[in-house]
């Protein structure tokens, strides 16, 4: 802990120095080229909201450090992923070949991550993934140039299995969207759940973008589980939760879901009816650490809204990058040193202590059990239990 505090102090000091430099010695600074970070996120299409939140988090952190790292200015170049991996490939090539970026970050879709993987690997451009969750990105398809500072599907859902079996119920209905993330998340949950003696009563995958969940809900009602583990996001989560409550299932069946389902943006659309729903995630609004308090305050002040885990992911992606640039003192010419700096980075995040795992290039972090609650008038999640420090096994 002591080392970390020291690191923070150094960082703050550097930040101050940078601020001073930017105001008084702007001439000398201007001679040094800024560090260019290419960010590819969906700003249009179904994942636009995610892209927006992640960008907010990134900018929030960069503002905090005055857009400075290792004595150099930082410049973000944002490109729209358009929820299409082919576009992600194109945009990454543009950022690398035309804009000559030093690092890449962002990436909402796992398919985009897979799509750009070979190019990034061959070009040896460091990429810090801020969202895409497919396990394979840091397992069989991992690359020394690709890091993930968000979370893998396995990491987020595996620890929830035993916790649900012990604290919620042994009979659980498994529901997920019919795509790669839904399947990986459900498999991870099931793995832990079965180990702890749980019994899945049914497993159901529904197509993305459904506007009616009544058929799904009647199947849940007929299966009479103690709880539902749902992996849904965006409008699917909103519609499912709304109908689940309308049909009155929340009175007899508990919700123990993926963190995406009770994301603060989703709760905003549902209201108090979702109170009490449990979920697993790597960040909780009520986490009592100074970094989280600082993050929430800054976010609320700047955007006048409640942050969610996507904003945290953006915030931390930049924190890792800035941390590594500081370690190499702004000298990116030696790529191996930069990669080494990211591999060994440890940060104090709003989600607690987060550390890069040099073996998988995926972060090791705490995962929490949470519950929807209204806190100081804010509809969000509160901490129920710390499920421990979770490391993705990498295979």
């Amino acid at each position, binding site marked *: 802990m002591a080392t970390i505090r020291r690191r923070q102090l150094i960082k703050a000091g550097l930040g101050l120095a940078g601020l001073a430099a930017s105001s008084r010695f702007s001439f000398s600074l201007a001679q040094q080229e800024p560090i260019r970070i290419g960010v590819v996120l969906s*700003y*249009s299409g179904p994942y636009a909201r995610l892209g927006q939140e992640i960008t907010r988090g990134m900018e929030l952190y960069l503002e905090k450090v005055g857009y400075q790292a290792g004595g150099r200015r930082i410049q973000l170049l944002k490109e*729209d992923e358009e929820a299409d991996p082919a576009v992600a490939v194109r945009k990454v*090539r543009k950022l*690398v*070949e*035309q804009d000559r970026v030093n690092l890449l970050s962002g990436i909402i879709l796992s398919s985009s991550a897979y*799509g750009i993987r070979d190019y990034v690997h061959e070009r040896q451009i460091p990429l810090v993934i801020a969202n895409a969750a497919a396990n394979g990105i840091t397992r069989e398809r991992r690359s020394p140039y690709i890091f993930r500072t968000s979370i893998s599907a396995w990491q987020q859902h595996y620890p929830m299995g035993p916790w649900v079996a012990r604290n919620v119920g042994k009979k659980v209905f498994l529901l997920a969207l019919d795509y*790669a993330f839904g399947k990986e998340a459900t498999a991870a949950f099931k793995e832990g759940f079965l180990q702890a003696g749980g019994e899945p009563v049914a497993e159901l995958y529904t197509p993305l973008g459904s506007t009616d969940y009544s058929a799904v809900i009647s199947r849940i009602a007929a299966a009479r589980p103690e709880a539902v583990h749902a992996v849904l996001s965006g409008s699917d989560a909103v519609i499912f939760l709304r109908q689940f409550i309308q049909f009155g299932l929340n009175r007899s069946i508990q919700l123990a879901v993926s963190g995406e389902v009770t994301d603060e943006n989703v709760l905003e659309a549902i209201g108090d009816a979702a109170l009490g729903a449990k979920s697993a995630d790597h960040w909780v609004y009520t986490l009592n650490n100074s970094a989280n308090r600082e993050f929430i305050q800054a976010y609320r002040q700047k955007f006048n809204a409640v942050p969610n885990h996507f904003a945290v992911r953006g915030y931390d992606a930049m924190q890792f990058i800035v941390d590594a640039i500081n370690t190499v003192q702004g000298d990116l010419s030696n790529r191996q040193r930069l990669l080494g700096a990211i591999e060994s980075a440890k940060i104090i995040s709003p989600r607690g202590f987060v550390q890069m795992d040099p073996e998988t290039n995926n972060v090791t972090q705490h995962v929490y059990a949470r519950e929807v609650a209204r806190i100081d008038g804010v509809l969000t999640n509160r901490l129920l239990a710390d499920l421990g420090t979770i490391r993705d096994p990498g295979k």
Partner: protein
Amino acid sequence: MMAELSREARAGSNGRQGLLRWGLVGLLLLPLALGGYPLYLATEAALLGLAAVALSLLLGHGGVPSLGQAAFLGLGAYTVGLALKAGLPLGLALLLAPLAAALLALLTGLLVFRTHGIFILMLTLAFGQMVYSAAHKWTGLTGGDDGLSLSGLSIHPVLLHLVAVGVLLAAVGGLRALLQTPYGKTLEAIRQNEEKIRSLGVPTFYYKLSLYLLTAALTGLAGSGLALHRSFISPHDLFWLTSATLMVMVLLGGSRGLWGAVFGALLYTFVQAWVSSFTDLWGLFVGSLLVLTVLFAREGLWPLLERRLGGGRGNA
């Protein structure tokens, strides 16, 4: 009298129109000098252009409104990808792609051409989405959402671009010649008045089906090129939005004469790439461009250019 007549028929393009076409070819080849990202975009445009040319032939000349072209594009891409994964040589893989697409066209075409007009649109859309679903669900084969990476395959971008542009120009030239044959003229006649040409003794079903097969094969070839170009295939290439994008390219450039489709693909690819770097509302921009085109240059932008710069009527 007759000799004069056929001479006039042959004199399709005057000099200035030819110049305009050379200009377009120049635009396609210019990025070779720039390399890097512009070259990447240009290859993408040339390959999408090939698919757009096929759609243009189908829609503008055959009168078949297809919203299912993405199925052929994606099938071509997956065929080449899976064939390479299975260890087949590249040449064979590139041959299989159009064949697979044509086979799919044969199976669906037998049903599609029992209907007309808007129903063709619906059926092609439905078949396209079925293929999309299959690619999406059959994770074992296609990798599902995560897509299919063609790692370890490296074709020099300059070579790939030259081949793509070469195939595109050969397709445009060949198909334009085809349109002058009795077969091509019969296709035009079917679009203009199917009852009449049937009453003259032409079994239109087979003409439309053969055209559908031909365009599907070309689209499949374009898809296989895209797979090599991006080294990655995702089910998104099979989604109906990809079909719609091809349709927009064709309508922007002009659905008749085939050059318009090439121009539309080039314009769309570069404008979209350029505008989307400035604003997330790029869709609005492209949409407005399409609306303006439909309102003020109904035949498309290429015929407009031909009239303004080429000083003559667009030769279809």
